[in-house]
Structure formats: C-alpha cells, structure tokens
C-alpha cells in the first residue's frame, strides 16, 4: 500500500474511534445508534415461514416419497445388524482392520467393539452404525457425482462451490427443521441430515483431486488414445484416488459427528439418543459411557479409512489367487462357523445381560465426590474466568467492576486513570510510528471498558468493514457490510454479538495457546510426539462428546461452552503452527544462525514471520472450528445465535431457526474471508 493510502486508512481509524467515543458520551440521547430500533427490523421470520409453507405445500409429496423409499433399505440394514450375532460383527470388523492396517488396529477394533457389548449398548450401537453404513455410501456417491460435475463444468462449479460453503457454515441444526418439515419424522430424517452434512467434504475432495492430476499424466492419457470415458475412469480417477479416499474419510467423520445431532430429530433407541437424553437428565456417568461408544466407533473408522488412503502402492496385490482373495475366504469361513456356533452357544449370539458391566453409578459417585471435594477450586476457576475475562469483554469493565466482584468500585479517579493509561499507550505507539498498534491499544481499551454488547452497532460495522477494506479491498468491505446489515435488519444483532463475544474469546485463547504449543512442538520432538495422538483424538471425537466432561464438572453456562470450544478449536492452531515452523527452508535458518541470531531473535524475527501464512491458515481454521462448536455448545445453555437456532428447532419455527443459522453462516464467512485475505496479503512478504 502506498504511503498516502496508508495514511488515509490511519485517519479513517482515528475518525472511527473518535466517533465511537462521541456516540458513547452521548449514548443516553442516541438510543438508535446504541440499539438498532425495533421498528427498523424487517419481519423476515414471517417471510421465511410463509415461503417454507409454500415449498412444503408444493413439494411435500415428492420429498415424503423419497423419505419412504429410503426407509426401506434403512430398515434392512438395521435388521441385518441387529440380527447378526455380536461375535460375528466383532470378528468381521477386526478382520477388516487387520486387512487394511495390521495387528495394532485389529486389536484396537476388537477392544472397541467388545466395549459396546460389555457396556450393554449393543442394540443402540448397531442402530447408530446402521445410520452411518447407510449415509456414508450415499454421501460418497452423491459427493462424487457433484464433485465431478463441478470439475467438468465451470458453470456448475459456480453454483456448487458456494452451496457447499453454505452447507458447511450454516449450523446443522438450522437445516434440521426444513428437513423435518419436508421429509416428516423418523430415522430417515436423521439419515438425510447426515447425508447433507457429510456431502461437502466429498465434493470438495473429488473436485480438488481431479484438478490436481498432473497435466502431463492427462496428456499422456490423451496421447495413448484414451476415449473420454477411458480418460475419466482409467486416468483421472485413479490418479486422484488418494484425494478421493481422503474425502471418504472426512465424509465418514462428518457422518459420525451427526449421530447425536440426528437423534435430536429422528433418533430413537440409538446411541446418540442415549447420550442426549442422559445428558438432559444430568446423568453424566451414563452419558459419558454412551459418548465413548461414538468416540470409539469414529476412531476405528477414521484409522481404517485414513490407512486405506495412505496405503503405499508398492505392496499391492500379489498375483496368486490365495493371497488376493484370502481375506474374503477367511470372512466367509468365519461367518459360517460363527453362525453355526451361535446356534449351539446362545451367548455367542446375544451377550447375556448378567455379564454386562455398567459402571455408570460408580462414575456418578466418583463425580459427586470430586465435585464436593474440589467445589471451592472449581468455583474459583469459574469465577476468575467469568469476572476477569468473560464479563469485561461482554459487558465492559464499566459494568463488571464493583466491590462485589473485583473488591473495589470504579470511582471517577480510577476511570480517569484508565483513560489516561490507554491514551498514553496509544500515543507512545503513535509517536514511534506504529500507528496500527496505537489504534489497536485504543480500540481494545474502549472494548474492555464498554463491552462488546454495549458498543454502538455502527461502530462495530465500521471496524469490521474498515478491516475488510484494508485487507481485501472494497468488494470484501461491501460484502461484509451487506452481511452485517442482514443481522441488523433481521433483528438478531444482539444475539450475534453474544455469539461473537463467546467465540471471540475462545478463538483468541485457542490461537494463543495453540501457537505456543505449536512452537514447543516444532522445537521438541518429544512434545510433538505427545501432542500428536491428543490432537488426533480431539479431532476425531464427535464435538458433542467433547462437551460431556466439561458439563459434568462446570455445569451449564458460558464458561463450560468456552472450554468445550477451546478444546475443539485449539487443534488446528497447534497443527498449523507446528507445520509452518517445521517447514521453513533450512538455509534460511542456517543463514540466521550464521548472522548470530539468538534463540528468541530466531523465533520472533525469522521463524514466526516466515510461518505467518501457515499461522493465518491455522487461525482461519480455529475460527471455523470455534463457530461449528458454538452451535453445539448452545445445547448447554449459552445465549446467542446458537440458542436461537435451537429454539427455532424445538418450537418448529422455521423462520427463527433459519435466520439465526444464516446469521452464524454470515459471521463464519466474514471471519473466513477476512483471515484468508490477510493470509494472502502476508504470503508474498514471507516468501
């Protein structure tokens, strides 16, 4: 950016701060700027509902037909899985794990399946598995077709890419209701929701894989005289197979994370319902036992498909028929043997109830003991976080500081002191030529004093749009402006700010903590080796299951949600930081060492700046994960858009749920576009 333009941006920031302060000073008489007047809000909820009524009336029979058609195979799979002796299911899954990966995974799989039996959740587990077994192939097929269409036709891609964006950013809860309205109740609804949620990664990976095929390989195929069909099935698809398998893996993970959510609308007698209902009854021992089932299923399936995607091509099938078909032969022999044996020994068919081990009560007792024993510690952790971090951001020091919370009142002297300190900080940075830092200090001081939810809406719009303009130009600024206008006009601005506050704190903490861990992991192989399996587990764990332990200890509320979001959103920060820092060209490091950089200088002046684009990508992913988790966290009683989505769902109010869902998607997209634009901006500087 040229000097003049940079100076113009600086003046815009100063003007924005000045105006904000002016509005805040006269806030009693400028109510319309503080709170968006209700008379300006458009009746969008009614419009949405009316529109949906028309759609349902016109297309209802069609969708119900689909629903009935899908119910048939779904029922077959359920019946089959229920009919199969548990020993057979266990053996076949173990054999499959062994075939794709080896003894280690086979052992893990056997243990995981055995857990489901012993704990007494066999029937429920199989019902959930039926959902996945049914939804994944359909999502994979659909995703493959759509992804291929997007690859071949630029026009189709222009429709498909944004649709996938929306499907992935709109919280699932928001489209559960329209599905419910269109398809009716029942397990099929959960199936359709799972498919919709699981399709986007398959579409993306298919398109990406096909696009990434080496152009010379394509040319070689053409020169070999391949017909268009041969070109697709014998050149493009095999070359893109790795990426496509990765898509299948991600699709499968998405389907697993939907098990619990799907049970909200269509679940009966499956494991998701078990988790959900026990948690609602505050039976945490029961819910964690059920949650572990889902986590185990997800982990087994993840390892199996990930392993298949990374399998080296060298150890491909040998030629003789025995080695090629041995697993199929073993599977058939196994099936027959077990079916016969289970006739003779009934416990092989149905695990006897008397042998079950169900330590829920023990867990509950233990939990109660911990909660009682450490109640002071737990309470003080919660209070500290609430009074010193969360409330100031939410409502401002102005509202938070009182003799009751901080131990002293906010006297005029203290207020003046705060203002002087903030001003001094800003001026100090300003005089040293670091105008950006000065603006940041002033902005943060204002934010902390007044609180995010108590700032005038035009100021927040101004800040975001100015930021967007600075990193991405006028188009991005206009887009973010339009998005925020929707939030205002739909009347969900206050809820949106509550969501931003919670998610914002979580993201800042996750990113800071995650980057620090990433730095450590990049310098120390032991730390890296310890973090890797933890990250893997956190990422394969369906987000809902992550909530359970935090709810157990900290009960419902914002703080619990915050911890849950952090535990989910911190993973990309750690991973990208480590990856970015480890992949810096060694010559650059050597050059810096030769110039006599100390360890700290190396970090701050060489490694972090060079890893900046990767760090930005990590931030971007952290934000996306945070927003995804925010909706799930709404189930444990946070306020904001997530809660509105949930209310809309439980009241059958399509408009309310959809608007809140779109609102969340808007926030996610604004954050995504701004961080990506910034990442692109720092890219050339880091090269």
């Amino acid at each position, binding site marked *: 950016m040229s000097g003049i333009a940079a100076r113009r941006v600086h003046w815009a920031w100063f003007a924005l701060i000045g105006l904000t302060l002016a509005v805040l000073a006269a806030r009693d008489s400028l109510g319309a700027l503080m709170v968006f007047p209700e008379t300006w809000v458009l009746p969008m909820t009614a419009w949405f509902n009316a529109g949906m009524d028309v759609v349902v009336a016109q297309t209802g029979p069609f969708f119900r037909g689909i629903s009935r058609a899908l119910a048939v195979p779904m029922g077959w799979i359920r019946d089959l899985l229920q009919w199969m002796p548990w020993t057979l299911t266990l053996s076949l899954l173990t054999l499959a794990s062994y075939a794709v990966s080896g003894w280690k995974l086979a052992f893990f799989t056997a243990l995981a399946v055995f857990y489901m039996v012993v704990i007494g959740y066999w029937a429920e587990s199989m019902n959930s598995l039926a959902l996945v077994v049914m939804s994944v192939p359909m999502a994979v097929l659909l995703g493959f077709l759509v992804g291929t269409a997007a690859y071949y036709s630029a026009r189709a891609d222009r429709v498909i890419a944004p649709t996938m964006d929306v499907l992935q950013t709109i919280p699932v809860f928001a489209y559960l209701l329209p599905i419910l309205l269109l398809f009716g109740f029942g397990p099929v609804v959960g199936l359709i929701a799972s498919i919709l949620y699981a399709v986007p990664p398959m579409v993306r990976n298919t398109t990406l894989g096909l696009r990434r095929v080496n152009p010379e*390989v394509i*040319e*070689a195929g053409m020169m070999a005289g*391949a017909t268009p069909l041969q070109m697709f099935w014998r050149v493009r698809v095999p070359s893109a197979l790795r990426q496509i398998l990765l898509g299948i893996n991600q699709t499968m993970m998405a389907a697993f994370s939907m098990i619990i959510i799907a049970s909200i609308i269509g679940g009966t007698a499956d494991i998701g319902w078990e988790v959900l209902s026990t948690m609602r009854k505050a039976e945490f021992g029961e819910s964690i036992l059920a949650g572990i089932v889902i986590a185990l299923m997800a982990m087994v399936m993840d390892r199996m498909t990930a392993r298949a995607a990374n399998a080296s091509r060298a150890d491909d099938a040998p030629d003789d028929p025995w080695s090629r078909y041995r697993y199929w032969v073993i599977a058939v022999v196994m099936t027959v043997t077990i079916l016969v044996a289970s006739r003779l020994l009934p416990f092989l068919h149905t695990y006897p109830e008397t042998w079950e081990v169900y330590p829920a009560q023990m867990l509950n007792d233990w939990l109660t003991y911990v909660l009682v024993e450490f109640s002071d510690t737990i309470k003080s952790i919660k209070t500290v976080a609430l009074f010193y971090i969360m409330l100031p951001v939410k409502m401002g020091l102005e509202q938070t500081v009182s003799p009751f919370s901080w131990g002293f009142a906010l006297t005029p002297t203290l207020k003046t002191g705060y203002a002087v300190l903030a001003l001094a900080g800003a001026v100090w940075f300003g005089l040293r030529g670091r105008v950006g830092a000065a603006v940041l200090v002033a902005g943060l001081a204002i934010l902390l004093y007044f609180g995010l939810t108590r700032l005038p809406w035009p100021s927040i719009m101004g800040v975001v749009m100015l930021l967007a303009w600075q990193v991405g130009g006028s188009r991005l600024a206009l887009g973010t402006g339009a998005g925020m206008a929707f939030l205002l006009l739909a009347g969900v601005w206050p809820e949106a700010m509550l969501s931003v506050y919670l998610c914002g704190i979580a993201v800042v903490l996750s990113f800071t903590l995650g980057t620090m861990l990433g730095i450590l992991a990049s310098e120390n192989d032991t730390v890296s080796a310890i973090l890797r399996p933890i990250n893997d587990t956190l990422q394969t764990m369906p987000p809902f299951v992550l909530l359970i332990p935090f709810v157990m200890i900290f009960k419902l509320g914002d703080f619990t949600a915050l911890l849950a979001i952090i535990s989910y959103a911190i993973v990309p920060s750690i991973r990208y930081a480590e990856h970015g820092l480890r992949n810096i060209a060694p010559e650059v490091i050597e050059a810096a060492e030769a110039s006599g950089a100390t360890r700290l200088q190396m970090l701050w002046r060489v490694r972090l700046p060079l890893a900046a684009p990767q760090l930005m990508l990590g931030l971007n992913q952290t934000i996306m994960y945070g927003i995804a988790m925010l909706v799930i966290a709404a189930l444990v009683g946070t306020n904001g858009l997530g809660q509105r989505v949930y209310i809309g769902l439980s009241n059958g109010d399509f408009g309310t749920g959809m608007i809140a869902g779109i609102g969340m998607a808007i926030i996610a997209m604004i954050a995504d576009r701004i961080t990506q634009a910034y990442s692109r901006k720092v890219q050339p500087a880091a090269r």
Partner: protein
Amino acid sequence: MNQPHSGDDEVSDIRLSCRNIWKVYGKNAGGYFQTAPDEPAALVERIRADGAIPAAANVSFDVRVGEIFVIMGLSGSGKSTVVRCLSRLVEPTHGRITLNGDDLLAQSPKEMIQIRRHKIGMVFQNFGLMPHLSVYDNIAFPLSLQGETRADIRAQVDKVIELVGLRGRENSYPHQLSGGQQQRVGIARSLAVDPDLWLLDEPFSALDPLIRRQMQDEFLRIQNDLRKSIVFITHDFLEALRVADRMMIMRGGQVVQTGTPAELITNPADDYVAEFTNDVPLARVLTAAEVIDKAARAADGLDRIAADMPVETLLPMLAEHPQGLMAERDGLALGVVTAQSVIAALARHAGRTEAATP
C-alpha cells in the same frame, strides 16, 4: 543420416508437414484469420496489441521419414505449443498439418483417438507416468486402452522393455525409480504402439547432466535401430546439436532459422542464433566440406576423406599429411583441405560469433 533429397518425390519422403501454424490465446482468436491474413510480423504485433498471446506464429516445417528434427528454443518460445499442435493436444488456431499426406486438422475427435493410438507416440518432460500403475502396466497402458488381448500386449511390452533396458523392473512403481529410469518407462510407453511419428518434449531436461548425456546416447542407439520420424524439443543448444539431423530455432512463437546444425553455426540468420553458437566447439560441428581451401590446386595422390567428417576427427590426420587431404562425396572430389584452410575457417567463424556478442 541426412539423405540426399531430390525435390520431385516429396510425397513419399515427407512424414509430417506443417504449414503456417498459428496458435493464438485470447478472446476471438479465430477472428484474425477470417479475412486474408496480414504479413506475419504485422499480425503478431496486432495480436499482442489486443492483449492476446501468439504462442505460435506462422510456423512451417517438414519432417522427413527417419529424420530427427529438433525444435530448439528458450522457455516461452512456443516450442511446446507447436509440438502439442502436432498431436492436437493443443488445437491450432490456423494452419495446415499433414501426417503421411493426411490432413490432421480435418480429423474428427474419434479419428484423432485412432491416430494417437496407432500413429503418434509422445514422451514428456516430467515423464507423465500414471502413479497408480506399475512399470509394466504403464507401458501396457496405451495397448490395453485399445482392448488388445493379454498375450499380444505382453509380447509387445516385452519387446520395448528389452529395447529400453528395463528388464527386471516390471513390477516396480514409478515413485520407486530414479528420474532416468522413469524416462525409460516413458520412452517404452511411447514406443509400445510402434508409432510413425515420435514426439519428444524436452525428454531429458529434468535429468542430471551425466544421466542426460547417457540417455542421449541411449536415444540415438534406439533411433539407429528403429529409424522413426522424430520431432525432438529442447532448450539446450548442445543437446540439439548432438541429436539433430536438422533443427529449427524458435523465439517468441516465431521461427528464427531452420537448417542442419552446421548450417546454423556457419551461417546464423541473426545475432540471436549466433549467440547460441558461442559455446559450441567449432571443430566438432564444422565438416570437411566447409573448410575446403578454394585456392589450393588438387594434387594427385592425396588421401581421401568423407565430406561430412567433422574437423575434430580430421585434425590428427592433417598432422600426418601436411600437403592436405581430398574431401569427397559419393566418390566425387570436392576440394582440398589443408591446415591453412582449417585455421582460416575456424578463425572466420570464431570471429563472427565473437562479433555477435558485444
């Protein structure tokens, strides 16, 4: 390898013929050729001014049967575009290409698939191997697309595997091979269908210098056996000299000069061509015919040498025959080569290339 060509039986002699090939990237590229085209240079200017890119401009050349024709140019010179036009991987905007006398640009997509299956083979700079197929399957790939029987495929693949020296590596995968080995697979694959026209797009550019040299020798050995009609693309002038029967230099999409390596060196069309010849050891390129002493009178009893013998080879002989050597072609005496005439010729050409580089 240069066959003496008589102008009257061109049809049988010429494998591939390109006339006024244009490839223009940009909006409405075909529009430039709707009306009678301008002078090429003027048209290039006009296309550039419109913001379009003339990747190949008015390129014409012939490839004779059994000849290695090299297209040499730096990156962006349009050489890769031209070679892709020959197989219609890139559709030429304008021009005429004939293979064995058939108009290539008039073929339907289906006919084009047949032509690629049977008539043209291509080798790629970065090998273009299918990562999911073994060496054997990669080489068999073009044959299996044609739906030949397993036995036919095996026989054909065995033959080319032998030819490129890959025996024993059939079950390896591309990522397990070195670059040189991978390119052997690429060469074998392109030869598996026994094509009439063999296209090689910078086949050795991705290899280490030592391997490159080795592969060039290997390539010449294979060509000695097969006598294919070849279009060979390279950016390396020395490589061009090593393999070319005739060569064409391209710059900015246009042809700068076409001729035998010796013609290019002894008679560069402009400073651009002359600049390439700087590093060339003259004694290796100049032949006896080009260093004849025009003033010297043919005395009897001189030893006879072939007219296309490189100067490098005749120097030691000249040391033993101070009175000179007689250059002959087809038993016909052309003139006397003396130490004096060799030095004069070398000095003449060295002086010229020196002058070309300020």
